[in-house]
């Protein structure tokens, strides 16, 4: 009836997961009760859960990513403190639990933390920057988001019911085969990642189509903001790489469920084929995350330097160069496989060459600041911190790309320090830079600068205190993922690293404090103009927050930096462009198909994990029925009357006129 599921799946004898489960379930219940008591369900259902607005979906992606970032950080705290306490002893986490924690940390941080955050920015910004009203397929956008959320849910359910994988964030066979991992941990991993991967693919297809086919009049490719270019490159990589992940996980699933022999070490299976396939996805995945972050920095440097981006075209070329070469470097993750000197040389060289494209970008950012009037606002601090951090991370990466050197540092703490150096330094710093930068656009008020600066400095210093010792430990020979540490000489490094984690934790607290303080003082921090930073691309032409249709009339772009041109013209002629002719707008209607599909997909995943076949089949049938019902609907769009459009846009124009008048007044006064 319930497959492998029984009461022994609840971790009653293990205090840490049990207490965590109770706390998490308790707070979730609290939130649900609060929402019910306050009567917020209709609002949430109408405005968020069933919304197909790319801005709403972007915000929900962001929320999911931030929550998962905190969850992953909790795992990180446990790992660092455990290792510091495990010198010459056992630490406080039993081995099977410790192994789950480092596996969950990687999986959650990359796939459910960083990935939704990056998709949040792409979803929110791409249509606004392209001057259009939504993405190409708004309903699929909602489906994509909810599938990602479904995957995140399954990973977190593993904490309460059963266990998570103990195999590392990429479940290498033969360890991940049923022979050595008979439990449900790897199955949780497989279904969670598979489901969220499909969601990501849908979003990738959506954004590629949006960028290539839906740009406002005048927005030729070489007038697009760099963020759109990086989003395009990133989503092309999603389209090219995520099917590889889907295929690889499907094969491992077949091995585990039906006793097939793709990756077993019996009957001719080939475990190294898994490693090749999974990294053929895994390495592009790194660039899927980092390219949009590069795009965020490329928007921030020009804005806060008061100058156009240096070398726009070389930036586009470098982005596409990285996009292509990132598919040709995967083998550097396992030089030690023994592929031979020729193969290792090829991948060593291609891995080093990718630094050329990145170098072009770094110089472009530096030259953008050169000669500009640099304003040291919070987004700019994160961006400058990124340049420093990322250069070090890039350089240690080039060291690891040399096969003989890699043989010595493979799977060491040096490697751990390196990839945190690039992923934290670029993706996480980029996400926070972007959060500080676009927050006023999204919510209509700025974030408190003082707390923001505190959060940046704590995170920046904390990062270096945490990871510098790990580089040294790696060179001293410490390998990664150690549950107990037998070398007393490594103690100082591990202790310093824990201090670093504590500083980062203070940074996290400062970040939360910034949010709380800013929400409290939102009236003081209100952005009435829609252009709080003197921005250059089209999203700043809208009000903050933008109306649901983004643009009352589609803009007509006449050059690079579309909004900068409009703004210059207004300042030179001392008036706004004449009021356009307002026409009714067709907007897609809400749809519950996303949450419906994700609900049954979650049930399906859970049933497959626990071998409850009848539930799995029933939920598949229900999901299909949902799609048929959705396909049957007759009304796809609702019309916003011209008067409504005019009313909303005139309010925007009024604030802009007021701003213009104020500027004139200030100029006259000076």
């Amino acid at each position, binding site marked *: 009836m319930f497959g492998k599921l029984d009461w022994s799946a609840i971790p009653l004898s293990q205090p840490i997961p049990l207490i965590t489960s109770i706390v998490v379930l308790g707070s979730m219940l609290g939130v649900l009760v609060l929402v019910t008591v306050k009567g917020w369900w209709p609002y949430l259902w109408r405005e968020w859960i069933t919304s197909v607005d790319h801005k709403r979906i972007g915000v929900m992606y962001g929320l999911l990513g931030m929550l998962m970032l905190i969850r992953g950080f909790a795992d990180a705290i446990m790992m660092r403190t455990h290792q510091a306490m495990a010198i010459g002893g056992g630490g406080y986490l039993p081995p099977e639990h410790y192994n789950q924690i480092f596996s969950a940390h990687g999986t959650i941080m990359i796939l459910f933390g960083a990935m939704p955050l990056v998709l949040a920015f792409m979803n929110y910004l791409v249509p606004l920057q392209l001057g*259009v009203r939504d993405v*190409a*397929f708004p309903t699929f956008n909602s489906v994509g988001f909810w599938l990602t959320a479904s995957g995140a849910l399954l990973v977190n359910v593993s904490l309460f019911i059963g266990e998570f994988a103990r195999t590392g964030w990429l479940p290498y066979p033969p360890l991940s085969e049923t022979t050595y991992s008979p439990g449900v941990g790897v199955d949780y991993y497989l279904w969670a990642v598979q489901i969220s991967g499909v969601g990501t*693919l849908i979003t*990738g*297809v*959506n954004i*590629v*189509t949006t960028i*290539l*086919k*839906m*740009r*406002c*009049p*005048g*927005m*030729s*490719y070489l*007038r697009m903001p760099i963020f759109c270019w990086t989003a395009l490159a990133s989503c092309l990589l999603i*389209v*090219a790489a*995520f*099917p*590889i992940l*889907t*295929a*690889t996980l499907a*094969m491992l699933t*077949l091995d585990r469920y*039906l*006793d*097939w*022999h*793709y990756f*077993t070490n*019996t*009957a*001719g*299976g*080939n475990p190294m*084929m898994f490693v090749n*396939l999974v990294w053929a996805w895994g390495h592009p995945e790194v660039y899927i995350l980092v390219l949009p972050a590069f795009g965020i920095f490329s928007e921030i440097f020009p804005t806060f330097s008061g100058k156009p981006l240096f070398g726009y075209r070389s930036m586009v070329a470098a982005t596409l160069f990285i996009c292509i070469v990132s598919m040709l470097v995967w083998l550097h993750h396992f030089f030690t496989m023994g592929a031979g000197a020729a193969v290792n040389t090829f991948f060593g060289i291609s891995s080093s060459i990718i630094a050329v494209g990145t170098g072009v970008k770094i110089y472009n950012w530096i030259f953008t600041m050169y000669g500009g009037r640099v304003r040291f606002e919070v987004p700019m601090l994160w961006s400058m911190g990124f340049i420093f951090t990322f250069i070090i991370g890039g350089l240690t990466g080039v060291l690891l790309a040399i096969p003989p050197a890699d043989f010595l540092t493979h799977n060491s703490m040096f490697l751990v320090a390196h990839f945190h150096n690039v992923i934290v330094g670029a993706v996480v710093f980029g996400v926070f830079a972007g959060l500080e930068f676009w927050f006023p656009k999204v919510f209509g008020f700025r974030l408190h600068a003082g707390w923001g600066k505190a959060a940046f400095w704590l995170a920046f210093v904390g990062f270096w205190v945490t990871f510098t010792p790990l580089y040294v430990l790696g060179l001293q020979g410490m390998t990664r993922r150690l549950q107990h540490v037998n070398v007393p000489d490594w103690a100082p490094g591990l202790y310093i690293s824990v201090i670093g984690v504590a500083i980062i934790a203070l940074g996290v607290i400062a970040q939360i404090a910034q949010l709380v303080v800013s929400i409290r003082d939102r009236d003081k921090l209100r952005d009435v103009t829609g252009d709080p930073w003197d921005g250059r691309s089209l999203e700043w032409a809208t009000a903050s927050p933008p109306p649901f249709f983004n643009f009352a009339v*589609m803009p007509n*772009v006449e050059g690079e930096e579309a909004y900068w041109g409009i703004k210059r013209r207004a300042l030179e002629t001392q008036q706004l462009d004449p009021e356009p002719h307002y026409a009714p707008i067709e907007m897609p209607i809400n749809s519950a198909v996303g949450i419906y599909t994700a609900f049954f997909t979650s049930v399906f995943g859970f049933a497959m994990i626990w071998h409850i076949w009848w539930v799995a089949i029933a939920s598949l049938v229900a999901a*299909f029925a949902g799609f*048929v019902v959705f*396909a*049957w609907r007759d009304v*796809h769009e609702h019309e916003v009357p011209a008067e409504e459009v005019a009313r909303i846009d005139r309010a925007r124009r009024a604030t802009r006129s007021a701003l213009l008048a104020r500027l004139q007044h200030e100029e006259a006064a000076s």
Partner: protein
Amino acid sequence: MTNPDFPASLEAFRRREEDPHKLGHRGHGSRPPSPGAGHGDTGPARKRIIVGYGFWIFLLSDIILFACFFATFAVLRGATAGGPAISQIVDTNRVAWETACLLLSSYTCGLSFAATNAKNKLWTQILLLLTGLLGLAFVVLELQEFIDLAQRGITPQRSAMLTAFFGLVGLHGVHVTIGGLWLATMMAQVQFKGFRHEMMHRLMCFNLYWHALDIVWIGIFTIVYLLAVSP
């Protein structure tokens, strides 16, 4: 637009000539971008172009999925673990029939779209039904092949080569089956909803999907079956 005197296939050619964007027939070189197709700085494309384009992108990702299964088959082709080799499990006769069914279904599918373009419901339905029946015949033949093999003890559990074989061929079979479900849904929709814009777009996507499966099958036919029996 529609001339009822023309047979559906001729109608399709005529429409191609009339297509202002000459989609797929534009040739190369620097022509001015055509409005409504999302080219250059002409603004957003029309819905039909967006839907078709997005579906092409999805198909590319699907083909990459198949590419992975092709690659595993290539790697594991010799890993028979003492079991039968690929040349010993191929029944060329049945594969020939499977191929004939699938290629023919692609032809009827193309004809059905010509009828769709001519807004001819009856012929659209007849040709879609024919497509579905040929697809069904393909799936039945394939299932028969798998059952025959299983009865001889040749299952994916026997060796890595067989795992890769059943995986690749089976994945295609699953795709055809899903396509069949989609087709049945589309026929019901055509019956009740007629040829509205979104129906035309969906039928176009279904056509792309069905032809893509044909292309993949050509790959399977060549790499799995033909190479198995070639000396």
